[in-house]
């Protein structure tokens, strides 16, 4: 009986120890993180083992614990977790601990997952209005934005490509050409570009950054080109998500370079 119990303890100990080995833990941001606001992250555990599935894994990150009951060998499992950072800028991801009570619920084995992941946390958005004197006089006026569109001035005549709308075909010009149809390329009509000077926003620096974050997001959502003047640096107005992210990154890392 003693031999059986010791044998059982040895095998269960070995299984428990192996259960936490060769596991890759990855944490990816699912949405943008703003200081003070909860953001979704995707926690993925990859079981790199060749034969042994991973059982009853509990991943603790910050104050959140996620349970992964079973991850087959060579496969991965993902779960969403929500984290909130209070400070803007590059913030280290909290420690990740993997623990498991497998195979016997007598002891809980645990190990820290080493990582050097950082999260870029944008400033907390603070509702604001555009400061006076920071743009054109008539901000409501629409302008040609020199970007491809369908409602602006003619910008070029080009060969027909698959997917071009029929109404864009320049029939007159096409009639003169034999090789292919010609289409009219137009500019986009939109609100004028906006350059935000952070110094013109009210409040202390953190408040200025928060307000600016709000404005950048709002202007970008309305397809308006937005630029930024910050710390002797001028970022010319532009549209697009990558540009918006660039502006938010500048705001997030203000004073941390």
């Amino acid at each position, binding site marked *: *009986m*003693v*031999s*059986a*119990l*010791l*044998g*059982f303890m*040895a*095998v*269960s100990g*070995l*299984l428990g120890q192996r259960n936490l080995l060769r596991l890759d833990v990855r944490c990816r941001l699912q949405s943008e993180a703003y200081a003070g606001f909860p953001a979704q992250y995707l926690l993925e555990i990859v079981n790199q083992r*060749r034969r*042994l*599935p991973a*059982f*009853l894994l*509990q991943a603790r990150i910050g104050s959140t614990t996620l*349970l992964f*009951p*079973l991850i*087959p*060998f*060579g496969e991965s499992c993902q779960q969403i977790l929500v984290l909130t950072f209070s400070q803007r800028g590059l913030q280290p991801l909290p420690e990740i601990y993997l623990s498991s*009570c*497998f*195979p*016997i*619920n007598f002891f809980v084995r645990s190990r820290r997952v080493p990582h050097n992941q950082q999260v870029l946390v944008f400033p907390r958005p603070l509702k604001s209005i555009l400061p006076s004197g920071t743009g054109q006089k008539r901000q409501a006026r629409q302008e040609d934005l020199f970007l491809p569109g369908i409602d602006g001035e003619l910008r070029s005549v080009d060969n027909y490509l698959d997917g071009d709308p029929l109404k864009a075909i320049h029939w007159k010009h096409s009639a003169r050409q034999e090789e292919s149809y010609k289409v009219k390329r137009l500019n986009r009509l939109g609100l004028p570009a906006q350059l935000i000077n952070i110094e013109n926003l009210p409040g202390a620096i953190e408040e200025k950054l928060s307000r600016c974050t709000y404005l950048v997001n709002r202007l970008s959502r309305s397809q308006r080109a937005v630029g930024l003047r910050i710390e002797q640096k001028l970022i010319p107005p532009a549209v697009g998500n990558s540009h918006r992210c660039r502006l938010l990154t500048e705001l997030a890392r203000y004073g941390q370079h």
Partner: protein
Amino acid sequence: MVSIKQILHLLLYISAAVSLLPVLPFLAWWVQLVLGGGILVGIIGDRGGNYLLRQSPATLLSSGFFLLFLFQANWSNLAEPLIQFLCLLLAVRLAGDKSPRHMLQLFLLATIILAASSMLTLDMAYLVYLVILVMLVTSGLLLLSFFATDPQIIFNRREWRFLLKTLAVLPIGSLLLMLVLFVILPRTQTPLWNFLNPKPNSVIGMSDQVSPGSVAELSQSGQLAFRAEGDPLPPDALYWRGIVLNQLDGNIWTRNQSIQEEKYLPGRSRERQLRIFSEPKADRYLVTLDHPRLVDQIRHQFSGDGVVRTLYNSGRNQNYLVFAQIDAGSRLLGRPDGYLQLPAGISRRLMALGREIGRQEGGYQGKIDRLEAFFRQQQLSYSNRQLSLTENPAETFLFETKRGYCEYFASSFALLLRIAGVPSRLVGGYLGGEYNQLGGYYLVSEDLAHVWVEALDDRGVWQRLDPSRLAINAEQDLLQIRRRELPILQIFADAMLHNWNRLVLTYDLRQQFELVREIGKRIREIKDVRSLKIGTLLWGGLLAVPIGVYILVRRQRTRAARVVASYRRRLARCCGVVALPAELGLFTLAKRTGAGACQDFARIYGGALYRGETLSAGDYRHLKILIRSLKRVRFPIEVAKPAMDGDNVTSNKPS
């Protein structure tokens, strides 16, 4: 889908039943009733989710049972009340709510009860129960860890398969390690918890005193006395020596511990070495083959008259080595006066007979011969049934009833010898035994207990005399039943039981040391013998490395080949043929059958083959699933026809 909770409940009840099976015959009827009730109430509660026995009454009931245990238990009887108490606790737990904590308690209780049952019985069935319980409890504890972490957890079929595979590792690994640990775990010469084991107190068979006339009938228990492992012996030499009774007190022969020195006289036959495996018994006398020279592997005290006693009575099975010669003897050193001692109150008739024999010429041997002649003349018969109870058993036996068993024969013979002036004593032990050819040992039961006489000859050497052989029916009623052969099945069953005793019950520290010594000896032998062949070993090792690598590479190949072979076998079966023609490649088969599974198989396998890659574990899994999917599919026999021109014949050789 069956939930983990339901499986856990099932495991709990089976574990409880397995742990109770060995102790059930020892439990009082009311405890059995409580157990049955507990299980019934528990099952009803599990089904309805409403338990009759709540937490507080359960605690109260358990406390009451503990008080009862305290009331019943004492140092001489601890095991049974303890087990009874554990069973009652189990009943209470089974009847109540089964939270993860309670389930854990139930599994532990079942384990403890089985462990405690070894105090009552330790036969071979215990191993079976232990193996089953280890499997049940380990599986249960593993599932319990899931249940305790998340009671709502549900697995799909694939996840169950993963879980069951791992589930198998735990009990199988535990059992294999159990075997290893059993051999190497350091153990004491006597069990630490031995005081809990009830000591055997019944006296059956060989006794430390002989009092003929005290019982009317000898019971035939058939209980095993010991097994003696060794070569077969001549049937007439099967005298197993136990105790020498040298003092006559009234009608009772007893042993006086002040023994005179004797000198061992070796015989001419070869010395026999026997390993005796004796059953637990109340006294400390060790049985040996008559006449013993040496006893080994047990702490003992060897008396001059060839009686061996252990230094302590462990109350357990014992095993020890005996070195003996069947024709050896011992010479009495000193005066034989002690062996002529007579009690007061011997009947006149016996005194007259003894004195008359004593007056015969021819020394000790002449008197012995005369007495033997007298016994033959009396037409005494051997019997152990319907004997008269009397205060003068020797006289009644010799002159009136003329019936008796070995004690009558031996005690009256030795008494008359002493009256006649021949130093004599009784020897208690066993006569005969059934030889088990399969196990290579003698099986001696308590029924074969026997008493004979030792008398001094004219040289001062003790000679064995068996007056029971002088009975007119000795051959039939004494000797034949001691030479019977066992049925084949019984031989097999007993050999199994013997190995259980030998390898498990009597495995102790001494045997562990022997094992270590033996291994050390073997290693030294290897070192000595191979000292000249170290080069050979090195070369062998160097050769073994590439062979091992080759085998590993080959294993990869054979796995792929195995899958293809299995696929072709399945396809052949689908076509109703024994085997497919070898030249039919995978793509040809896929084209001919037109089945999606075959096309997928060709794509996966052929793709890997053409890319020069090995198949991954996932590929193998997929291929096996495809093969399985063809189980009930039927193809026309044309599929299996030999290849024709235009067929895409692809090699099946694995990459």
